[in-house]
């Protein structure tokens, strides 16, 4: 009843239970945080805009992205993955989402940023629908916790339009 094995077992069970409980509480405590992030995105320039030989439109643009995501960070936040996606609709596809830029924010100090970049991933359509196309730019973020539930949200910035002609 009071052998070494039983005591070791009881101690192990107890410590694992407490650890699991702490992890659950840490994850739940994220719900207490109500973040208020902000973001602005400008398309500074259309670098080039053309039709590929296979018939798909491709465009390259220069962007200015500034955001303040400091309020997303809590004590249980390991990192925030942030990315900007172009979103538009075409006759064939009800939704096209293309990531243009992404970044990993490791800590709260880096969560207020302003960057000037051309699109990191190629913006290619499935087809040739880009001329005069209206699209949204959406800043998404995915919060990765130290432990527990991941969550995500976004800011949609509508009202961008591509040029009417290739250049």
């Amino acid at each position: 009843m009071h052998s070494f094995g039983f005591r070791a077992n009881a101690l192990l069970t107890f410590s694992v239970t407490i650890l699991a409980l702490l992890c659950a509480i840490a994850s739940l405590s994220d719900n207490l945080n109500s973040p208020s992030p902000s973001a602005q995105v400008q398309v500074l320039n259309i670098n080039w805009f053309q039709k590929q030989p296979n018939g798909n439109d491709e465009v390259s643009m220069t962007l200015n992205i500034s955001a303040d995501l400091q309020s997303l960070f809590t004590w249980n936040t390991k990192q925030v993955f942030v990315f900007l996606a172009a979103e538009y609709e075409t006759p064939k596809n009800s939704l096209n989402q293309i990531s243009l830029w992404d970044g990993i924010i490791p800590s709260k100090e880096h969560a207020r940023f302003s960057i000037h970049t051309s699109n990191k991933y190629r913006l290619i359509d499935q087809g040739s629908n880009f001329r005069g196309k209206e699209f949204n730019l959406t800043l998404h973020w995915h919060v990765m916790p130290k432990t527990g539930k991941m969550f995500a949200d976004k800011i949609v910035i509508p009202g961008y339009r591509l040029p009417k002609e290739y250049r």
Partner: protein
Amino acid sequence: MGWIADTVDSVKSIQLRQALIQIVNLGLIVSSALMIWKGLMCITGSESPVVVVLSGSMEPGFKRGDILFLHMSKDPIRTGEIVVFNIDGRDIPIVHRVIKVHERQDTGEAYILTKGDNNDMDDRVLYNHGQNWLQNHHIMGRAVGFLPYVGWVTIMMTEKPVLKYILIGALGLLVITSKD
């Protein structure tokens, strides 16, 4: 001299009963573990509700040995989500982030491109030759939760199978020999 035989009989019956109880206990543990696993499969709708991260391609978010909880819901896949997918003809599933989605108007079929956070290139190099997109049937689930380090136990067991047998043997021995 009848009481000696009686005593021997009673001692024998106690041992037999105890052995039976231990066997039932062992069966109980095995079947409840199986029930938990199958129950999780039912709740999450995913073939493998829990996966262990095996590579560093998603660092610093997920490290080798971390555990991910998967969920397979009807919701369509969107960019930024971390999905687990299986390329046709390969055994080991991959955990990467979605960077492009094209969703068909008529069928709702999605064309998905993924990339590991820590990789420079997107995953077209990992897909089969000539395959540009993942489709819905490749996706096994999306990651919803995260637990660090716990997966090291399984990584160690798969890499050193001896450990597995030692552990199972020791646990079995413990259950059978322990007395309540």
